[in-house]
């Protein structure tokens, strides 16, 4: 399913923050995780992901750090900052409210599918 740009703009950053909640990840890993864990719904190309990462970094929600991986290559690992954690908590709450509203309108079912 293809998500419209406006929806992606709202959902993309919180999805990235959520993924990073469990620990630091590098760019390719994030792309893959987004595609797999959302079953392709939030599969965004690198053309979208990296600018989003730089934006989150600019806002101080995530922090990037270059480190050498086991393979010997350099990777930039992103992790959630304190500010990012607070933003994630706030936005998650908003999303829950939104989903609840959608459910009450019958747009989504409690299970998450289309009623």
């Amino acid at each position, binding site marked *: 399913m293809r998500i419209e740009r406006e929806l992606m703009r709202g959902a993309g950053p919180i999805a990235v923050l959520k993924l990073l909640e469990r620990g630091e990840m*590098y*760019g*390719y*890993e994030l*792309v*893959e995780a987004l595609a797999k864990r959302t079953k392709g719904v939030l599969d*965004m*190309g*690198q*053309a*979208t992901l*990296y*600018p*989003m*990462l*730089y*934006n989150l*970094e*600019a*806002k101080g929600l995530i922090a990037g750090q*270059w480190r050498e991986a086991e*393979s010997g*290559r*350099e*990777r*930039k690992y992103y992790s959630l900052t304190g500010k990012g954690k607070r933003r994630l908590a706030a936005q998650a709450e908003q999303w829950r409210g939104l989903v609840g509203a959608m459910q009450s309108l019958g747009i989504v079912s409690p299970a998450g599918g289309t009623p």
Partner: protein
Amino acid sequence: MTREAPDKKGAPTVRERSSPRARPAQSAFWKVMDTDLGWFGFRRCLAWAEQVIDRSGLPEAHRVLIARVVRRTRLWRREQADVARELVAHFADGLEAGRTEADLLSSFGNEKKAARLIRRAKKRNRGPVWRAWLYWWRAVGCLFLLVLAVYLYYGVQVWTARPKIARNYLAELNAPAEAVPPEDRGWPLMREAILAYDRSADVIPEEGDEPSRKAFLLWSERPGTAYWPLAAERLRENEHVLDLVRAAAAKPRLAFRPGVDDDAALQMKWNWIASEAEFTPPNPTRDLMNVLQPHLAEIKLFARMLTAEMHLAASEDRGARVPENTSACVRLAEQAREIPFVINDLVAISISHLTCDTIRELLERRPDALRDRQWRDVGHALASFSGGGRIVVNLAGERAIFRDFLQRSFSDDGKGGGLAVPRAMPSAIMGEIFLPEDDDLREGRDWLLQLAAPVAALVMANRRSQSAYYDRLMNQAESWFSRPQWEQPRQADVREAFADVETRSIRAFRYWPVRMALPALMRAQATAEQTTQVRDATLVAIALELFRRREGRYPESLDELVPAFLPAVPPDRHTGKPLNYAVREGKPILYSVGVNLADDGGAPARRPPTGITGRLRVEQWRHPLDLKQMREESPRSIPDGDWILYPPSLARETEDEE
């Protein structure tokens, strides 16, 4: 999966392969472009990123893609390198995860969009200094656009504006002269005198063999001076010229018409043109500001000749010529004033002053050269100048000049308003930079004027305001002129009234035309007051001589002269009190208290010591409060002693002593 070894000798670099242009390898142009200076330094910015990409070991297609994206971001060198490292890591991770080269390429997305978004995001990561710089430039840009908009707004109005000449002020100025019957006009005789007089012969040797070309120096000679014999000889040879001058002066009016009467013969005489072929008929609609009055210099020179001739006549026992020439000089002064400009008044005042100086010299040196009747005639002639009253500078002509200037240099909205049109302004207002006198230069500077026009229109007050402000200043000046010298305002009051044109701040540009067109009003009237004082003192000196002849003594006080010899004792124009009088060693002394406003008993003021600048002259009036302030700040700037009006030798001797 194709992998290309990095930095393989002879293998093309990413920079070469990713270039959008095909180019000849040996071209000098491309050699330069391949250096860090190529593409205006952009290559240099890319250098770090290219190194990262070239050393990545990624397939060529990936490296080219990354290089294109990185270049399109147009970020700083360091930022590009960072982006390149991240994308290289991404593709390497993808390959390591088993994805194909093509798959990774297709999943990358739109490279243009990626570059744009990366650029935008990375810029957000920049520090506060850069943001401040960015905001500063944005502010500058907005300000520039605002200024440009205002400039264009006024530009459209000014570039399309055309002044409308509704009145011919020159014709109005000349109308009184046109109305004079031909037989009452002095100008034809004056013109004849000008053409008959060869001033090139009236030179005196000066500084060795170098002749002075200034004839007036010769006519400043007096009996006893070095070149008086030469002057006397030339006066006799120019008797016919002086006859013409006296005849012209005897006419009711001179009736000279500026811009009309300077014909070809006169222009050749004045060396304006070399031959009659160069003569162009005068422009009957010429602007007043540029109208010339060459006749004034001629009148002034003839007056000086007449005063020199008075000395000659007195020394040759031809006393009757003195009242004749006195009358002629006064009439010349009046004729010079027929045109109501300040410059005309100043010439008239100068002639009157010169005549009075001559009479007082004759009174002192050769009092017996004239009979009673002749001295009385001299007195009556002198007293007739300016109707016998105090001399007041006339500002009517200046007002006309400014009105004419406004109609020629401002657009007309039909309601009295309008914007400044600099290209239509005369050089006297715009200055030599924008409007050189030279026509060729002027044409070349037209673009400069056109560019400056909207600014001038924005900064300068509009036509109505200029007119109102000019009138306000002129009305104020006329109000001051109507009062005698001792009731004139303080300098601070004058400065306050003229603040907008005297200031050196930007405000001065608002009324720039007024500033440039305004004559030195207060100085002109101060000169008139001084001449009034000199004229009054000369009349008293004549009365004293006539009294002495009748009574065999000088009076105890000037009151004794009234009413037989004088209608009233004239005032000291520094105080308003009666003119001061003393008899010392049997000789009368007439004096004003002078600038220090203190009666020093007729002790002449000493000349300022050498090296002191800014010192007042004894005849310069100052308000008592200004004087008090000057005494506190710089007491030596105020000369002590009195202004000796008679005898002239007393003041001169004091000067010589110094």
